[in-house]
């Protein structure tokens, strides 16, 4: 049998004529994606070069929308908040998810329950997450009540109504939902590490920190890249939770690029200007998208 298989393989390699129905199978989904994703995306880019309110005729204005962005203080604030969001939401999900995965990696009694509890919020929508934490942050909510009970009356505040805390309060809620997801990705990555490596390091007398630094982290490199890509793309897409908690307020203090884009489009009816913000989001995501694709395809090269 094994002797016979090489010729069969080379036969396939030469290519038996592909039945026409196969082309239909691949073209139909590709056309759906072209009409439903690529065509609108190109339209979105083109719209960023016009001034349009959706009613009168669109007026081509070249790069004027982008020029206007550079002096728009709300846009600059949203850009800064998006950067804060990316660093805190992305960074803390990464660190928290990795730390909890390390704690929960060994199969021991009870660990399944702990993992499930931390993962559970991930199945809630961002809207449900927002509402749960809205209740926590209410003026008479559990957070303020707890602070009062601890005698920290001066620390109480309107967490979502105070421009100094609103963004960070939302980030805490988003982290609560996201960390379980990152934990699952790291658990899968940790499981894939060859246990003999760790054993060898242990036998050589490496400390816990050394084992983490010189064995675990390098072994997790490809997972790290995926987690970072996912976090950056999700951070740039984040919309639902801000929309449901503060809608960018108070005084635009929690406005992200995505929420600002939405309000300029559907409240302000500045469709061209809003498209320019969407293009900025796209450009910021581009680097990550490309590196993700390169990785995904360099690994599936073997055939």
């Amino acid at each position, binding site marked *: 049998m094994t002797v016979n298989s090489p010729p069969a393989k080379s036969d*396939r390699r030469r290519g*038996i004529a*592909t039945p026409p*129905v*196969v*082309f239909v*199978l*691949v073209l*139909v*989904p*590709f056309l*759906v*994606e072209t009409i*439903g*994703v690529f*065509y*609108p*995306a190109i*339209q*979105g880019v083109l*719209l960023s070069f016009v001034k349009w309110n959706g009613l009168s005729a669109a007026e081509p204005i070249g790069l004027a929308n982008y020029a206007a962005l550079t002096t728009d203080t709300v846009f600059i604030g949203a850009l800064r908040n998006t950067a804060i969001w990316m660093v805190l939401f992305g960074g803390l999900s990464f660190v928290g998810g990795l730390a909890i995965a390390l*704690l*929960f990696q060994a199969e*021991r009694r009870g660990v399944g*329950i702990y993992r499930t*509890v931390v*993962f*559970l*919020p991930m*199945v*809630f*929508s*961002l*809207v*449900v997450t927002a509402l*749960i934490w809205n*209740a*926590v942050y*209410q003026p*008479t909510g559990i*957070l303020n009540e707890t602070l009062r009970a601890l005698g920290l009356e001066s620390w109480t505040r309107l967490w979502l109504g105070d421009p100094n805390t609103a963004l960070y309060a939302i980030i805490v809620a988003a982290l*609560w939902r996201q960390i379980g997801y990152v934990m699952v990705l790291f658990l*899968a*990555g940790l499981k*894939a590490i060859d246990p003999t490596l760790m054993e060898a390091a242990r036998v050589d007398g490496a400390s816990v920190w050394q084992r983490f630094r010189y064995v675990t982290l390098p072994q997790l490199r*490809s*997972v790290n890249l995926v987690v970072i890509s996912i976090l950056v793309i999700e951070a740039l*897409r984040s919309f639902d939770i801000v*929309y*449901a908690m503060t809608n960018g307020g108070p005084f635009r203090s929690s406005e992200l690029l*995505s929420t600002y*884009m939405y309000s300029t*489009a559907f409240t302000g009816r500045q469709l061209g200007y809003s498209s320019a913000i*969407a293009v900025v989001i*796209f450009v910021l*995501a581009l680097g990550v*998208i490309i590196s993700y694709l390169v990785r995904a*395809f360099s690994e*599936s090269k073997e*055939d």
Partner: protein
Amino acid sequence: MTTTQILNPPLSPPSGSNTRNRRWRVRRHANTLLFHSSSIVISAFWFFPIALVILTSFRSLSDIFQNGVGSIPGSGLVITNYADAWTEAGMFQAMMNSFIITIPVVLLSLGLSSFAAFALSRYRLKFRRTLLLVMLAGNLLPVQLMLIPYVRIAEGLGIFDMFVTVIAVQTALGLGFYTFVLYGFMRAIPFELQDAASIDGAGPLRIFFQIVLPLCRPALAALGALAFTWIFNDLLMSITLLRTDDKFPVTAAVVSLQGEFSAQWNLIAAATVIAAIPCVIVFLIFQRSFIGGLALGAVK
């Protein structure tokens, strides 16, 4: 024999002196204690907000008005909030809308992407890698780029504020990722099976439905469970493409409920719990494939 024994020392401590043995056991106990106490603290932090919202959903309105959302319940618990949320606050209608949108999207996007993955992974088509790359790239685009064109196109075609529009858009948006994952899965199926079937005269469709698709059941279950929660939980597309309140799915309905019944946290909490239930059920049923599916996209 001797080498394996050296490489795999027995897990129990070397039985030398009795005191060393005891010290080892104490350290192991301390370790277990430390693990469980830190895990319990973490789990408590994660579970606490959920417990709180469940508790709030059973409190009466007067209790919340008198004592605040964050207080210990002052009076007895009631179940009427759920009935109110279900009927008066429109959660029943919203739940139906969510299913009307989610189920067709899951079936359509998984169906179409398994066609594409089958053709790309089982036949030597030209440009198949390019095609797969382009399809996955489409999935990674920020949806913000497409929002205004979606509304414009839907208005142009006269299908704005209709379920079919949300279904079409969500189906198209998911295709790239599902195709990519299924492609990886289908490529691992031995070609000998397909060759044997071809020799017996089976066409591509027969090979797809009778050989490849049944073997992909685990991947389809994982992606199906994930897709269900992703579509069910989405807010942005519904509020962009739908206008009538009666057509809002659960996510959008809960957000507008929050504005409408702003201080009635008992009702909002009940609606929140209702909104979370379908995905929790899907998660509990498909737990293993669900988590496996998340890792599938990341670790290959």
